[in-house]
């Protein structure tokens, strides 16, 4: 892993944040009232190829950007994404790499990120649980992320994976 890889990963995350906040969401691409967690997929894809410390910082930064450009208190997405990246780092050294593992991983980690965000947000006074739509907003992004991951992971592999491949199994 080089500084160039980390810079490239950071650039991809920034582009993902712009796409997430400008293209996805209510009034944009938002099928069935929910949108994919595009940034999370990019973070998870990048985290396969960079060392643990930069990967954690990348997750934290991505979450912070979402917090800054969203309506939630600062730090909530940062916290969720940091936890999710940490979990993914632990698993990438143990699980066999492959489409199925990646799919299940992306699905489960998206669920985890959304659930953590809701729980921590509720502790900080956000009222997410007043509507049953909250379940839909946890599940649907995880499903959408499967489709997004099928495009993003190969792309990130092409950009970052040529020099070094840690993968979810290294």
């Amino acid at each position, binding site marked *: 892993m080089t500084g160039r890889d980390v810079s490239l990963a950071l650039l991809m995350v920034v582009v993902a944040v712009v796409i997430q906040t400008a293209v996805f969401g*209510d009034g944009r691409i938002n099928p069935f009232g929910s949108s994919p967690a595009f940034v999370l997929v990019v973070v998870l894809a990048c985290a396969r190829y960079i060392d643990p410390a930069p990967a954690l910082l990348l997750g934290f930064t991505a979450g912070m950007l979402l917090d800054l450009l969203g*309506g939630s208190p600062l730090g909530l997405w940062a916290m969720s994404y940091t936890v999710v990246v940490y979990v993914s780092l632990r698993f990438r050294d143990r699980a066999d790499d492959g489409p199925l593992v990646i799919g299940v991983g992306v699905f489960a980690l998206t669920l985890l990120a959304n659930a953590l965000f809701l729980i921590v947000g509720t502790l900080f006074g956000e009222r997410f649980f*007043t509507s049953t739509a909250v379940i839909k907003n946890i599940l649907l992004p995880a499903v959408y992320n499967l489709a997004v991951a099928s495009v993003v992971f190969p792309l990130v592999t092409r950009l970052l994976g040529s020099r070094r491949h840690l993968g979810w199994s290294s």
Partner: protein
Amino acid sequence: MQSFQRFDRSTSLFIVLLVVAFMLATFDVRSDGTGVGTTMRDGAQTLFSPLQEAASAVTRPVVGFIDALSDIASLREENDELREENDSLRAEVEEFAGVQAELELLRELNGVEVPDDLPTVVARITSPGSSSFDLDRWINKGSDDGISIGDAVIVEQGLVGRIDQVFDGSARVRLILDPNVRVAVRDAVTDQAGFVTGNNTDPLVLRIFQAEEAAIAGTIVETAGSRFPSGIVVGTVIETAADEAGFGLVAEVEPGVSFSSLDFVIVIVGYSPLDAQPQDDLLEQDPVESEEQPTDTTEPGAETTEPSSETATTEGSP
């Protein structure tokens, strides 16, 4: 051993980042829209707004196409419903034409100030937030255009929300769907005052304490002054509801605005509700100027019945 050390370092960093995130969240919630968090948001908005606008402009045709595709399944059903609705509305239009003319005449006679007479700024939605959980929108106008915190945001169909964060060239609109938002309202038929609260993506909830009459399905609920100019449509009562054994009336209200199709919005910049101003500012004002405050904040049923409900509204939201 090397692997163990690396794991240990990353775990330490993980804990540090969690603590930082936790502290940031705590400070941000406690600072209530001021402080470092606002400065950071300002910086992020300044950096990302042009990128978001560019991305939005480039992808708009694609987004429109995908949006239309996802709607195809529901179009047939919606078409049938609309056909039926059209027939019944056609009959109602003739009936309401006379009532509308009478209402317009009464408005002229009473000299009621409608929101349209206030100065406004037209803005475009640049971002619908950063996740499916966000109940806010970012617009491409800010304090440079005269927008300030608390300004009401409307579209033709009614109330959208209010400005809760303002930067030089952008602002954040907190939607009335947010459970932290309360709007003092009046039943347009019975004139009973109450308040409407957001319920995420579900219908809004109307509460009227000591209701003497039922809220009838189809009745329009409109703002009753206070923090919003009066007379803005908030929504329509979905099902008839009456006061339940002295506990007050609770009814569901369908918002007048379709939040998923918002593109341009109007920000009312000329309205200055009395209770939104700091007390010190009021004391320093010229008494004559103070008397020139909008009179609709003193309308019956608006301030007297719900003085505190709206005070704890969007100002308290994150």
